[in-house]
């Protein structure tokens, strides 16, 4: 077992305790270029709502609401911070790498591409906590998918049920 320090690195503790961009966007609607999506972790009952403002090219603003564990909070916070201002293409790449790092049992994480998000690499060794880290990313994935479908704001929630390392 990896040590708890690998799981709760300084950055995680910091963002877990003082999350950035933890606020709602009240008038989030398709017309205003805003999409939001709920995420739910059935293992613990924690919920989040992720808000993304985008012109279809760049993610101009990201923020979230919801209370959960330190890993969930840190992951949500760092997601919003790191991705703000990035292009949709860049975001998709980071998203893919992040999920790969946490859910592919074999893959060697490639911390270079992920920058400071690589602090979540240690979560893989704590299978019960993988969903905590992936939850906001699954919500983001759903938002991006709905935008390529050009559906705009979508109802429904995602759960990160699939994020299991066997």
């Amino acid at each position, binding site marked *: 077992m990896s040590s708890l320090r690998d799981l709760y690195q300084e950055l995680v503790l910091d963002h877990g305790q003082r999350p950035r961009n933890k606020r709602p966007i009240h008038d989030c609607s398709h017309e205003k270029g805003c999409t939001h999506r709920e995420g739910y972790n059935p293992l613990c009952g924690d919920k989040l709502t992720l808000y993304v403002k985008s012109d279809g090219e760049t993610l101009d603003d990201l923020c979230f609401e919801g209370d959960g564990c*330190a890993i969930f909070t840190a992951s949500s916070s760092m997601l919003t911070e790191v991705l703000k201002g990035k292009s949709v293409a860049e975001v998709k790449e980071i998203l893919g790498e992040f999920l790969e790092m946490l859910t592919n049992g074999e893959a060697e994480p490639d911390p270079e591409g992920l920058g400071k998000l690589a602090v979540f690499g240690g979560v893989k060794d*704590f299978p019960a906590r993988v969903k905590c880290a992936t939850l906001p990313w699954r919500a983001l994935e759903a938002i991006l998918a709905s935008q390529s479908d050009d559906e705009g704001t979508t109802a429904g929630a995602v759960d990160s049920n699939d994020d299991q390392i066997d």
Partner: protein
Amino acid sequence: MDPLKDVADCRDLEFLRQNGARADFPLLQNEDLVFLDSGASAQKPQVVLDALTDFYRTGYANIHRGVYRLSQQATELYEGARGKIQRFLGAAESSEIVFVRGATEGLNLLAHSFVRPRVQPGDEILITQMEHHSNIVPWQMLGQETGAVLKYVPLTGTGELDLAALPELLTDRTRVLAVTHVSNALGTINPVAEIIRLAREKGVPVIVDGAQAVPHLAVDVQALDCDFYVFSGHKLYGPTGIGAVYGKAEHWRAMPPWQGGGDMILSVTMEQTTYAEPPACFEAGTPDIAGAIGLGAAIDYVQGLGLANITAYEQELLAAGTEILGAVPGLRVIGTAADKAAVFSFVLEGVHPHDVGTFLDGDNIAVRTGHHCAQPIMDYFGIPATTRASLGVYNTAADLEALAESLLRIRKFFRV
């Protein structure tokens, strides 16, 4: 030879006070492990494992229809286990005991075979806000199917049932009351005798979910006068895959079967089937024969310790733990009923229960974190989850001290 066989024979409260019954449990010979998750499932004593392997090694055969001795002996062992459960629960006849996979299957069986034929649209099924999902979801499903309405006895701030609300909730449309004997999430021991008396006055039959009670308290279904009592073997130091439902003989006799198959019939033609008598007609297919025998051995085991001794010992642990955990700053126990089992459900200010759980695991302390399959309780207390330490006969005050020390380190680690 085997260190486990050296256990003292004098099994009384003093015996438990020495070091719990830890020496009886092979898995707990790992001295580093502090196991505080018996509410989810208990560890197994060597005698239960022996019962399983002895049966498979020397007496195994399918039961009931065999004309050869091995099969007859297996049948006797299986029916003997039914008799043990009968005596354990104080039932009048062994045919009042039906084997099921566990409490969940038992409650589904009752929803289907006992309650479903009795409800009409608008009828009421009364449960409580303290139930495990297994005693909620079957009733929600039945309600959806039949139009019956699900009502809840509310909680109080200490995690007890608000019994003042009960008389009004027992209406002339109430067709059944299903209530847990002991809450898995809070430890609250409900005054089921009193509840049953109130229900009886209104002619409402009562199903008691005893999953969290039988490992900790002596139960007498005739004294309680409940209509049904369900429990799981795996929480009672028995194997997984087996549990039992007690029901009054008159109910079983009047109930339609649920699952169909072999061993539950008297005769089958292509046109029709004649069912066997209870309990056979509620046990379709090959049952978990070894599981039943293992559960019988688990019952022998707890009776060897003595239910009264177990209760007394665990109450001492509850008192000790309340003090020990009381010394941890920022810790709030959820569920502070006057009458409760040795369960500590708590939140630690500033640290999410799952972070607590992961950290405790790092210290080799096994607790459960989450909603404990009792989300309505969490909703009531306005929290998503708790950390729960639930105790069994093998625990000691030292386990609770280890827990408290680890919690203090957690506060440091997370800087709260």
